[in-house]
């Protein structure tokens, strides 16, 4: 038995843990859980926990429906919200086929595979997301438009505000689970908040994001408040994004840094950025996977709709932040399209694959875009070679379907299942008559 597993068994015994939750993620990025007792833990480590995957989104297959959950002992954490007399814990799982090969429908293993491929070239991939979300009085769509808890705005200090208590408690829980928080603050929109996580390896970060979404919702629910990561819940105000900072390390050094470059950017940083930009349109269906995601990506928003990069330009998709002198380890790029309703395992897989393609093929970084792209019209943007991101899920799926890069990074199983599932989501949406149409057309026609 590995040391890590022995440590978990011992801790479960010493701390009197009553229940161990085995967590994994479906293809759409929803957290799933199987609970086992301490008595079953030993076997769970040695043989895995077998279950029927048919009902899990993206897990179903034609022949075999059973899969194995193999708990990853390095992710063992006590749950800080468990009652004191009933300690419980969680571990993330890798999903395997019954013959113990990696299950192609498991997003965590897809990310693991992409990370291993980068590792074979000597690179490790780190991510730091800025997660935005809203607090509402209720999450029940039957009650109409969601009601914000306050009317405060960016960086406002709202002392008597229930939501700042919620945020404080959320951060306490995250830190207790080993998820360091860099900043947290009130965002632009009413009742909108942001939590920035401290960078860590992309696999840990994807696990952390799954945990964060649960913790944020759970803490809110204790106060009868509903927290949502829906990208655009309100008309007329900013939606919730997940700007993500990306960096590569090689031999313990930040591979994006080059002290001889006037901006401190290495050729690797430029090629990686070029890769991310060139494939941005193909990966958007995954970084922004809901019909609703595309209502956030608009002009005048912090979700830039144009494929371009800049040092400081809110209208660009990729930002290469200017760094403080003497901080080479903080060299990074910021990718601004993703929203917090994405599947982080798949989104990180594609961002990495796109960047690595740029390095492998030595892509040239296009010129920086210093104009405000919002001020140009389509023709002017075309003239300077700026393409828009897809404007709807439908268009994003078309672009994804034609992408050899996305297919190879996700693997056939997830690639095909995702397209099928999302096409049907789009078709269902398309067949709806919306309030907009009724208000606009019914009185006139």
């Amino acid at each position, binding site marked *: 038995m590995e*040391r*890590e597993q022995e*440590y*978990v068994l*011992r*801790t479960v015994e*010493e*701390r009197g843990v009553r229940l161990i939750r085995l967590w994994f993620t479906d293809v759409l990025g929803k957290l799933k859980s199987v609970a086992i007792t301490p008595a079953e833990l030993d076997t769970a480590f040695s043989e895995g926990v077998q279950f029927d995957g048919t009902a899990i989104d993206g897990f179903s297959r034609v022949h075999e429906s059973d899969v194995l959950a193999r708990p990853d*002992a*390095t*992710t*063992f*954490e*006590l749950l*800080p919200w468990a009652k004191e007399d009933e300690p419980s814990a969680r571990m993330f799982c890798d999903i395997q086929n019954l013959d113990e090969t990696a299950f192609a429908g498991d997003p965590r293993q897809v990310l693991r595979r992409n*990370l291993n491929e980068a*590792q074979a070239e000597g690179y*490790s991939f*780190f991510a730091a997301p800025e997660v935005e979300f809203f607090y509402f009085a209720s999450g029940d769509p039957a009650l109409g438009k969601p009601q914000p808890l306050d009317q405060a705005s960016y960086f406002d200090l709202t002392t008597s505000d229930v939501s700042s208590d919620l945020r404080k408690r959320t951060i306490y829980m*995250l*830190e*207790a689970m*080993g*998820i*360091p*928080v860099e900043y947290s603050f009130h965002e632009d929109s009413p009742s909108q908040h942001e939590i920035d996580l*401290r*960078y*860590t*390896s992309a696999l*840990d970060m994807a696990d952390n994001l799954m945990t964060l979404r649960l913790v944020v919702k759970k803490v809110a629910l204790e106060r009868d408040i509903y927290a949502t990561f829906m990208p655009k819940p309100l008309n007329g105000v900013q939606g919730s994004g997940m700007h993500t900072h990306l960096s590569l*390390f090689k*031999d*313990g050094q930040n591979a994006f840094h080059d002290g001889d470059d006037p901006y401190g950017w290495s050729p690797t940083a430029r090629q990686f950025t070029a890769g991310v930009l060139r494939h941005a349109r193909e990966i958007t269906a995954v970084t922004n996977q809901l019909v609703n995601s595309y209502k956030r990506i608009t002009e005048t928003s912090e979700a830039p709709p144009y494929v371009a990069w800049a040092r400081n330009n809110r209208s660009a998709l990729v930002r290469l932040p200017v760094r403080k002198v003497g901080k080479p*380890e903080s060299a990074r790029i910021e990718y601004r399209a993703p929203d917090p309703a994405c599947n982080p395992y798949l989104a990180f897989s594609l961002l990495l694959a796109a960047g690595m393609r740029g390095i492998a093929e030595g892509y040239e970084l296009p010129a920086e875009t210093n104009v405000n792209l919002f001020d140009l019209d389509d023709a002017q943007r075309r003239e300077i070679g700026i393409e828009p991101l897809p404007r709807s899920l439908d268009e994003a799926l078309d672009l994804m379907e034609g992408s050899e890069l996305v297919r190879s990074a996700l693997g056939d199983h997830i690639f095909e299942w995702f397209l099928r599932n999302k096409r049907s989501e789009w078709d269902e949406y398309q067949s709806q008559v919306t309030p907009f149409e009724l208000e606009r057309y019914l009185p006139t026609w």
Partner: protein
Amino acid sequence: MEPLLVFPEPVPPELAQALDMGGWPWKVAADIDAARRDEPLDGWVGAIVMATAASDLDSAMRFCRAIKNGDINVDAVLLLVNGGQLIDLNPGEELFDDFCVHPFHPIEFEARLKHVFRGTGRNDEIELIEYGPLAMNLETYQAIIDGKPLDLTYMEYELLKFLAAHPGKVFSRETLLNRVWGYDYYGGARTVDVHVRRLRAKLGEEHANLIQTIRSVGYSFGRSRWAQD
């Protein structure tokens, strides 16, 4: 008791016999690299460095300097020299804790061993590390801060244990990676930063500064033992 480090090869039969008879486990290292490679997690409890052949004093001193510099982590050093080398020893450099003239008298040698290695404060098995508000039970893998359980992952636990076992000592990221993770872990030295930040998050604001960042060097735990009051 953990083994003593003996340098270099070959070990003279009378030394091997004296150690075995006295119940002192030992392990030989041919050079500095071998001593580093075989180093236990908490470092060597002690080293016997031999300069018994006339030409060996220089290499013995190099080995002792590697210990003093922290390249090899050793709690106490006993130097074995022959009578002719005594004149060249420079006690001012503080490279060893005691010395013994070779060939030795077995009773004197045993007395020196006890004097040097029993006094290191190292018990046969350390089961508890205590430092200020922190207590770690190595038998049960449990850590407590301010009387409350501290829930750690395995690697967080190992890192804290290593740091807390060497308060005041500064370790580079590479050293921590080698000594705690024990192999070239995915993510390299950056992994150490990530885990330190996780540990600080769990220690809470009040105790986060138990682990200090030493600029452009690495990390240290607790107060330096050299710090002035």
